[in-house]
């Protein structure tokens, strides 16, 4: 597999200018905004001299480019800076625990989307042409089209306030009843997407020659053909799985805010409002790097998994 390693290196090198561009843009955006962390925190109650002194301490009065270089140097050494909002806490100590929470929140939906979505996709492909196919597809489409902001309060009112089955919000870990509603809200859209993907790839495989051969051989339609078709239809699914893995720790803004889950999504919104530059940069950098790595991983995974591609690159 001599062709794979240079491919990985090439992708890594191509990722660097992207990350550079993104960090520069975000940094400049943050600095270009009116207000700064000192002013936001002191709210005009501190004297101008104090404000100026604090700004100098944080190097906020330097040239923006100089600030950027200093910041990136610290990041590469692993230091994301100190938060302004939560005094004297390092940004890393804030965002990483929250990412851990977001990860837990995404765990159930991750498994459920694939465990439920794939069988639905297979079923739809097999029922192609019957009434179940367009019916279920339409239902899934409709469910996905409902915006989360409307869905969440509705579910909260029905299940929590009216029927008193589940708690409205709050976070008590993944083994409490609090996780049920967020899981439902997070699973349904992904499920529809996976079902669709599975169906499309199944349909593509079903038209292939080897399937016709298998049938002509007289193999039992249901069991063995399923094994042939499904196995090959799983290829695009694996890239979807790999891709989603990297987004497990990315929290959804709405779900976290409306359900009161202290994850990275809710934190992003709070920190942007509070103009906490260091935290904003840290979150942006981590998200972007994760996105770039996820894309790379998906490309590489596909190279490994599809034997046809592997053979071609050799």
């Amino acid at each position: 597999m001599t062709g794979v390693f240079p491919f990985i290196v090439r992708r890594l090198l191509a990722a660097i200018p992207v990350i550079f561009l993104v960090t520069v843009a975000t940094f400049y955006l943050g600095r270009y905004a009116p207000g700064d962390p000192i002013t936001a925190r002191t709210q005009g109650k501190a004297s101008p001299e104090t404000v100026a002194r604090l700004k100098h301490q944080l190097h906020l009065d330097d040239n923006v480019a100089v600030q950027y270089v200093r910041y990136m140097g610290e990041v590469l050494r692993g230091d994301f800076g100190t938060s302004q909002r939560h005094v004297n806490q390092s940004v890393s100590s804030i965002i990483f625990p929250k990412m851990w929470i977001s990860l837990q929140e995404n765990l159930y939906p991750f498994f459920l989307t694939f465990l439920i979505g794939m069988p639905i996709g297979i079923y739809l492909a097999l029922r192609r042409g019957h009434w179940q196919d367009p019916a279920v597809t339409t239902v899934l489409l409709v469910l996905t089209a409902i915006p989360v902001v409307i869905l969440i309060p509705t579910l909260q009112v029905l299940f929590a306030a009216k029927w008193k089955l589940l708690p409205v919000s709050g976070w008590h870990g993944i083994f409490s009843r609090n996780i049920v509603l967020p899981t439902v809200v997070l699973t349904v859209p992904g499920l529809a997407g996976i079902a669709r993907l599975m169906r499309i790839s199944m349909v593509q495989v079903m038209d292939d020659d080897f399937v016709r051969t298998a049938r002509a051989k007289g193999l039992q339609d249901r069991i063995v053909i399923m094994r042939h078709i499904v196995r090959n239809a799983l290829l695009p699914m694996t890239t979807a799985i790999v891709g989603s893995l990297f987004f497990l720790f990315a929290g959804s803004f709405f779900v976290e805010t409306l359900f009161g889950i202290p994850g990275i999504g809710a934190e992003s919104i709070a920190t942007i409002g509070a103009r906490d530059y260091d935290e904003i940069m840290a979150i942006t950098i981590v998200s972007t790097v994760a996105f770039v790595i996820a894309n790379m991983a998906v490309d590489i995974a596909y190279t490994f998994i599809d034997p046809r591609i592997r053979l071609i690159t050799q």
Partner: protein
Amino acid sequence: MTANTAALLPTAADTYALERPPVPAWRAFARSLLKRKLACAALCYIVLFYGTAIFAPAIAPYSYEGSSHDLRKENVLQGPSWKHLFGTDRLGRDLFSRVVYATRTTMLITVATAITGGLFLGVGLGLLAGYRRGIVDSLINRLGEALGSIPALLLLLLLAATVRPRIDAWIRHAYGWPLIGSPLRTGIADITFVFFALTLIGWVDDERLIRSQVLAVRQQEYVLAARSMGASTARILWHHIFPNIRFLVVLGITTSIGAIALSEISLTFFGLGVRAPTPSFGDMIYDGSGPRQVLAHPHLLFVPGTIAILFFISFALFGDALNDILNPRTR
């Protein structure tokens, strides 16, 4: 030639049969669309929605801004009634009028962003990147990748929180100016900002699609033949390439409208999009959400909520049907 085989020769009738003109594209399209009843219903709703947006001032019985009369206790937070079809909100404003004007906000933002970001930027840059290749292609790709790597909502929030206050301050200076002062005061600045922000990130997906299709088409023999005959770039683009990307453009615009509307609602929900008093669905949904509010006054959430949900469902269904009809791979 015997009498038997003579019957096999092509006759005049056959020749005319071959020359019968093909069914015009529009007719075939309309027929395929009408066969899908659900998509037709979706289209009807879309037309109704945008029609309301266009004729908003004629349809809305009240103004969308509140007045001191509205704030009187008996007017606030009423449920649906004959006087106020959808009820009133926290400030006593008629919800029906607000919804009608909110469709106008949505229309302005979606149409402007879809046409500029999707059509001009997305298609234009896609054509440029796909046809010109070389350094232009690389530059556009890098830019698209960079823009796409930042989570969209994060970028929007960042832009709204950082760039916007400066724009606001600048615009407030211009309120007194003779010509553009009064249109500015109607809240068009808000809408313009949201439009700029959404266009900035909206072109990436469309551009990528168009570019890959252009790459595929430009290698066809007829394109090479045209180039060798000395056809200008403009002619090739218009005559050969564009007809093959038309369906992608239509599909791209339709699917992106739903995403644009959702982004606008999300932005407004977090207070960073269109702001009061300009009505918006995000604004109304924010007012209505929260379990206690929903229990006490459900109409605040469900009326704008249902209308918005139907909007998204209609676009999803219509886009799906369009995809089935237009995409040559699924025909």
